[in-house]
């Protein structure tokens, strides 16, 4: 493996184990390693890649694929993506198996009962923060509110709502 690939593998596998609660939380650390320590790209380029990963379908962690691609092409993209996913996934696999084995155990039930309210609160907080980040106009907030209301009250497929909102944006209304 070339030096750059080795560095990608090391940096992102460490990042994998400190990512608690989503990509947004490790963005500052990712920026530090990619822009300041390794000097792989400028801060502006880094921000562009993140915006691109957010606009594309799929997990936001794919920003890592774009960083790897910028540093060392397709191999870089593959190495960086695997590195950021493998350690945490292996841990999740191991914990899931233990979790399965203790199905019906009293302590497992208590842990779940305790975690569910926290999880719900975190999800509502995520919705709030993402709304603030995404919307910069009254029209934006209106689209967010209408989308949420429609999803809660009808069975319309959400892709139609995204497509409609994209068209409104294209028409210059957002």
């Amino acid at each position: 493996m070339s030096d750059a690939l080795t560095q990608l593998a090391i940096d992102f596998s460490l990042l994998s184990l400190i990512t608690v609660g989503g990509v947004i939380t490790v963005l500052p650390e990712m920026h530090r390693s990619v822009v300041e320590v390794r000097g792989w790209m400028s801060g502006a380029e880094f921000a562009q890649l993140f915006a691109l990963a957010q606009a594309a379908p799929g997990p936001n962690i794919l920003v890592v694929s774009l960083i790897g691609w910028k540093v060392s092409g397709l191999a870089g993209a593959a190495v960086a993506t695997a590195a950021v996913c493998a350690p945490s996934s292996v841990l999740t696999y191991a914990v899931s198996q233990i979790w399965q084995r203790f199905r019906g155990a009293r302590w497992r039930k208590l842990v779940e009962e305790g975690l569910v309210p926290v999880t719900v609160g975190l999800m509502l907080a995520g919705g709030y923060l993402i709304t603030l980040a995404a919307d910069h106009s009254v029209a934006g907030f209106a689209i967010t509110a209408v989308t949420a209301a429609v999803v809660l009250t009808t069975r319309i497929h959400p892709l139609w709502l995204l497509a409609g909102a994209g068209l409104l944006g294209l028409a210059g209304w957002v």
Partner: protein
Amino acid sequence: MSEAAGPPGVGELFLRFTQVGVSGFGGVMPWARRMLVEERRWLSAEEFNEALGLCQLLPGPNIVNMAVCVGTRFRGARGAFAAFMGLMCAPFAIVLVLGALFTQYGDVPAIASAFRGISAAAAGLIVAMGLKMAASPRLRSVMAVFALAAFVGIALVRLPLGVFLLAAAPASIAAAAWRSR
């Protein structure tokens, strides 16, 4: 649309998580919940909340953990691998193609404004998912305090998530234990 079936096979895990991955503009978790709870009914609403709780506590991207967790639950290591590959492969290819196009065409204003609309709607999907999860019967008790604390601590006070979880998770689990005495 919603047919309840037996445990999904490896191929089906791959396929369904591929669908979830490519639909997930601006956040994949609402699509995962829709597929798992509403369409396929592989998990009940409560099981989804529980699995997500575990996935948030563990390090790594939550949605990736969710795929691994669901895959493991139904088909062990092979299921975990299939769900993971389903979730990641197609979006990986798409994002690299977009990256290549982006370096070619830079920022076309029309595209940027379309994305503003899409992100606004995507935020609405996440808000709706949070509200659906809040309908959990477990929140109709004093335990709702911990949901409120999580919202205030993370959304308003902006505490670092790790610090918050270190304090809130044990407290909430202790409260659950105390309540069930």
